[in-house]
């Protein structure tokens, strides 16, 4: 067989592209071990100190805690609201379906700066002072549509005969929902919640407009960038990365094990 350029071109290109996407992740990780005096721009010396004392910069840890709390609360609300909408769209006929779809699509097609400035202008006009809860309100707003899209995909795979069978066996509406519909939708709901959590946790632009004096982790990084981001922020970023990758791997391994079991 002769050597063919075409055969190697794509894998090489893809490998290079992946190296490109991994470079900043590597940088963030490596610079979390940098011994820093003034700014964390250039490499100085290797140290574990930043990892051992990551809350030495108390603002970083406080901002991180706020981000976690906001992400958890807004995810719970938007997952509940979004799942209800997804079920209605997937299961029921009703008037105004197109208007509903449009209203759900628009937030995904609106630049964050517009949503952020709009909500901030509204808070300003109404006279609400901004803080923790205005961030939660904003995050539920922009994550809701993503929850609906994700759960709707799962609703579409549901076999309505399973629910009918439940009703035939004299189950009432709420036990049909909690014992049949909900468990079947759960993987989709979990995926939606994870997406919503990730979007909220990493959001900066909408947050900046609606946070007032409250800090979140991304807001802290943005403000710190002028003076130089402390390596403790890199530590937290790297930690979040490791945890998230671990979760993804566990989910994937479990899914493939389940698939194997089904085949056996």
């Amino acid at each position, binding site marked *: 067989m002769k050597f063919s350029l075409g055969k190697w071109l*794509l894998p090489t*290109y*893809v490998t290079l*592209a*992946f190296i490109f*996407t991994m*470079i*900043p*992740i590597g940088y*963030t990780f490596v610079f979390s071990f940098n011994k820093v005096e003034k700014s964390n*721009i*250039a490499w100085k010396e290797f140290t574990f100190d930043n990892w051992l004392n990551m809350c030495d910069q108390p603002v970083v840890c406080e901002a991180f805690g706020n981000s976690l709390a906001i992400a958890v609360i807004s995810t719970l609300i938007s997952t509940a609201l979004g799942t*209800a*909408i997804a079920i209605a769209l997937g*299961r*029921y*006929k*009703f008037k105004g379906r*197109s*208007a*509903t*779809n*449009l*209203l*759900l*699509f628009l937030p995904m*097609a*609106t*630049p*964050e*700066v*517009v*949503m952020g*400035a*709009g909500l*901030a*202008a*509204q808070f*300003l*006009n109404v006279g609400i002072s901004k803080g923790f809860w205005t961030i939660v*309100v904003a995050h*539920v*707003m922009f994550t*809701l549509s993503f929850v609906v899209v994700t759960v709707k995909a799962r609703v579409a795979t549901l076999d309505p005969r399973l629910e009918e069978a439940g009703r035939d066996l004299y189950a009432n509406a709420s036990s049909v929902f909690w014992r049949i519909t909900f468990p079947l939708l759960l993987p989709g709901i979990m995926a939606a919640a994870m997406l919503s959590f*990730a979007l909220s946790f990493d959001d*900066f*632009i909408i947050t900046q407009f609606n946070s007032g004096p409250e800090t979140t982790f*991304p807001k802290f*990084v943005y403000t710190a*960038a*002028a003076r130089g*981001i402390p390596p403790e922020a890199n530590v937290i*970023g*790297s930690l*979040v*990365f490791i945890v*998230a*990758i671990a979760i993804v*791997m566990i989910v*994937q391994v479990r899914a493939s094990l389940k698939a194997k079991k089904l085949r056996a």
Partner: protein
Amino acid sequence: MAFVALGQGSAGNSSAPKKASRVAFILLAPGMIYLGLFFLTPLVSLVITSLKTASFTGEIGMYDYGFQVSNYAYALDQYLPQITRSFIYALIATLMALLISYPIAYFIGVKARNKPILQAFLLTLVIAPFFISFLLRTFAWKQIFSNESPATQFLQSIGVLAPDQYVIGSSFAVIAGLTYNFIPFMTLPIYTSLERLDTRLVEAGADLYATPVQTFWKVTFPLSLPGVISGTLLTFIPISGDYVSASRDFLGGSDTAMIGNVVEANFFRIQDYPTASALSVMLMAAIVVLVSVYVRKSGTEELL
């Protein structure tokens, strides 16, 4: 709007039982009221604020309700370069992201189709950047592009850059950062389209003596178009409003400011809310027009 034809879905539900539609209403109402209150009315607030007049007490950040349409003329006059720059940057970055993402998506969705472990691994790599704060990733590019970095020094030593020439602060740095941050948003929808591609169609093309290049442009690419369209929208729209990459604290310089930077500066630094709002309204209007034309031209109505 061209995304969804309004009022289409109402046909045929007269036979739907009353009770079912009440259940649907109960399920829909909380979320839709929420979006009405915190997504739609803010857009109205934005328009109202964009027409406010300076308060006659002259206090900074205080404005009265009014109908000062000239706020728009002022915003256009002051910030036209930043507005055009936003769309040029967004266009270039979107095309760059497409060039990088399409082969990745093709490899994962078509070439790696029968290797589930490789496919899962590569998909994890695609979404991996999501798991590290995008501000930290952008800051990492600042470190890479910085004047003391090995990359810059290397480019200077081989003569690509003059000794006094730097990457940081240039349009190149900003566009590179924008491209990088939105690659996963481009890759995933294209992957989803290509994953469903029936490879027998590609084989049919080859059987009919089409060259691989012809087959790609006549069969594969058109079939992946829905993914390409969602991908380009999911990158173009957020990039046009982004202000992190172009910020001078990150990758930008003295003349890389985009519309988002101007909105941010007007909102927070000068507290000129009417101008900030007028710019946001114009950005939104431009996006709506561009997206409608684009979606209609490419013939895809179903996006959700």
